[in-house]
């Protein structure tokens, strides 16, 4: 091929690549890089231009009590939501995968929380948790309990957010499990049944191992989601009381757009990215060996 022809082929290639590449670079790679650069510069003001400060921002972060509080919250939030929502998703999927009257309706009902806008969901739950007039308190009153300010109490607020998140996430994850379950050949279960395996044994030794690729996918998504949650907090708690329900991304939002400390926000973001990367890589590395991909 001539040199001119070869150049044309290259040009075509780059032109075809361009739309996706431009979007990815503009909205993913450049912001990521810019954030990392930002995090090692001081906050610039009109009087004091931004200067390179090395790891000074990170040093400040280590001494930031609110940051540690938020990290702790996020840890308990992840521990509280991830296993529970995955287990519930699996349970629901197995249930609605079986023979069931009005199966389509049940499946839809489980998926509804996923379709609803987050803000609407938060408002519904705000009513549930309202002191005295809320659904929970009204039900509890029947049993003689007095009203409780669920979202106003630092001891219960995180639990409330966790329960709502489980409710929201498990229906979404159920869809993945349901799809995976339906792709499993029914003969496998029949063959196991003929050998005398009971339902729980079949689930433990056949179904669950074959669902592992789905579990890994869901697990990584659930982990990322647990660090990503921010919408509900705007409506329900605004991170309070006393930062008891503030999570990492919400704290970053506050630092960036309420306190306008862009450099510090960039520092926190870099940490969030690092944490997510480490967790995802770790999950892949540990679980991949134990997963059978068909």
């Amino acid at each position, binding site marked *: 091929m001539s040199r001119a022809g070869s150049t044309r082929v290259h040009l075509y290639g780059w032109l075809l690549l361009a739309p996706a590449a431009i979007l990815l670079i503009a909205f993913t790679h450049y912001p990521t890089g810019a954030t990392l650069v930002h995090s090692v510069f001081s906050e610039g003001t009109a009087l004091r231009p931004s200067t390179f400060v090395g790891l000074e921002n990170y040093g400040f972060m280590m001494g930031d009590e609110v940051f540690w509080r938020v990290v702790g919250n996020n840890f308990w939030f992840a521990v509280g939501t991830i296993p529970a929502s995955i287990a519930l998703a699996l349970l629901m999927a197995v249930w609605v995968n079986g023979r069931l009257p009005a199966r389509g309706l049940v499946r839809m009902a489980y998926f509804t929380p996923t379709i609803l806008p987050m803000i609407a969901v938060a408002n519904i739950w705000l009513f549930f948790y309202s002191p005295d007039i809320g659904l929970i308190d009204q039900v509890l009153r029947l049993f003689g309990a007095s009203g409780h300010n669920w979202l106003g109490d630092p001891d219960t607020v995180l639990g409330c957010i966790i329960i709502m998140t489980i409710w929201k996430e498990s229906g979404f994850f159920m869809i993945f499990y349901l799809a995976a379950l339906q792709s499993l050949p029914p003969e*496998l279960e029949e*063959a196991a049944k*003929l050998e005398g395996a009971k339902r729980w044994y079949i689930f433990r030794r056949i179904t669950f191992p074959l669902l592992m690729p789905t579990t890994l996918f869901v697990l990584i998504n659930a982990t990322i989601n647990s660090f990503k949650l921010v919408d509900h907090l705007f409506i329900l708690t605004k991170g309070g009381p006393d930062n008891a329900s503030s999570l990492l991304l919400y704290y970053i939002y506050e630092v960036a757009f309420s306190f306008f400390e862009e450099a510090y926000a960039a520092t926190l973001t870099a940490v969030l990215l690092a944490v997510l990367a480490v967790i995802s890589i770790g999950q892949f590395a540990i679980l991949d060996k134990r997963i059978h991909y*068909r």
Partner: protein
Amino acid sequence: MVLASSAIAGSHLWNSGSDSMSVIELVGVTKAWGDIVAVDDVSFTVEDGSFVVLLGPSGCGKSTTLRLIAGLESVTAGTVYIGGEDMTHKSPSERRISMVFQSYALFPHLNVAENIVFGLKVRKTPAAERDQRLKRAAEIVELSDLLHRKPAQLSGGQRQRVALARAIIAENAICLMDEPLSNLDAKLRHDMRGEIRALQRRLGVTVVYVTHDQSEAMSMADRVILLRDGRIEQAGTPDELYDRPETVFAAGFIGTPSMNLLDLTDGPGGAGISGLEGKPVLDGPGEGLKLGIRPEHIEIRDFGGLPAELVWSDYLGADTILTARVGSQSLLVRVPGRFDVARGVSVNLVWAPENVHVFDTATGRRASGRQALAMAA
């Protein structure tokens, strides 16, 4: 009857003594899903140690029948006896049977050894005995070198062997097989027929085998149960089905190419083939009857018999299948070796009266008491 059929098939002679008993018996078994009746009032028995094939076209209810025996489907009506015991409402595991699935149903995440011993583990067989039985089963199906492979790393034939080993190791008296060879290529399929049959005789197990392939049924079975639309069309030894088909359907299903079926009409001196009334082939009236004659039972002569015109020839190597027009109808003739014909060559067809079958067109059943005429020389 049992003795006779076993002797004809020349198999499991040690089993055909007076202690022979049926290990599986279906009495009036029906399976329906709403208005769709998949299995309709089916009754048959399977003798101990025999190889019974459920044969029929797709959708005839043969796989459903097998699954009813296995307990993977529940019967709508009727009774299933296994080993003399009413098992109609028992769970699959209580029936103590093995099954080989069409898809093999190997557990993809377990290796060959784990797949084979799966059932033993479920039933908590001691590890030492488990290993011993695994070793023996793997040797029988020649898988000893592949025990640590995953099913995805095996060829189709090897997967088939794993499925067989899983059925063998349970040491159940009954093994059900649902089209186990249909996913293999032609050569391997042929080899495996012999292997499965030899294995069945060696282990003395009773096999109920489902297939749509009549040649598989003919070559493997002690007894063939031919099904159509959920009902038993005919049951008997392969010879009986070939030599004396009871219905037009059975006549057309057994044999490749299948039996020629020619419409008969009344004619002078006896029934003649439609469009060729002057040459009687059957004593008496012919209207409403069909004459059946197998392609391999027709001979081509230069004179005598029925005048025919050759239309086409299919050369198959060992023999040639000729298409000929007789009167207003066409039939197939099998001749040995290569037989090149120019289109439109006139020949004469001859067959022996004892090879002629007569069927009633209206009922589709064999018409008894009719005498085929010898061909005029």
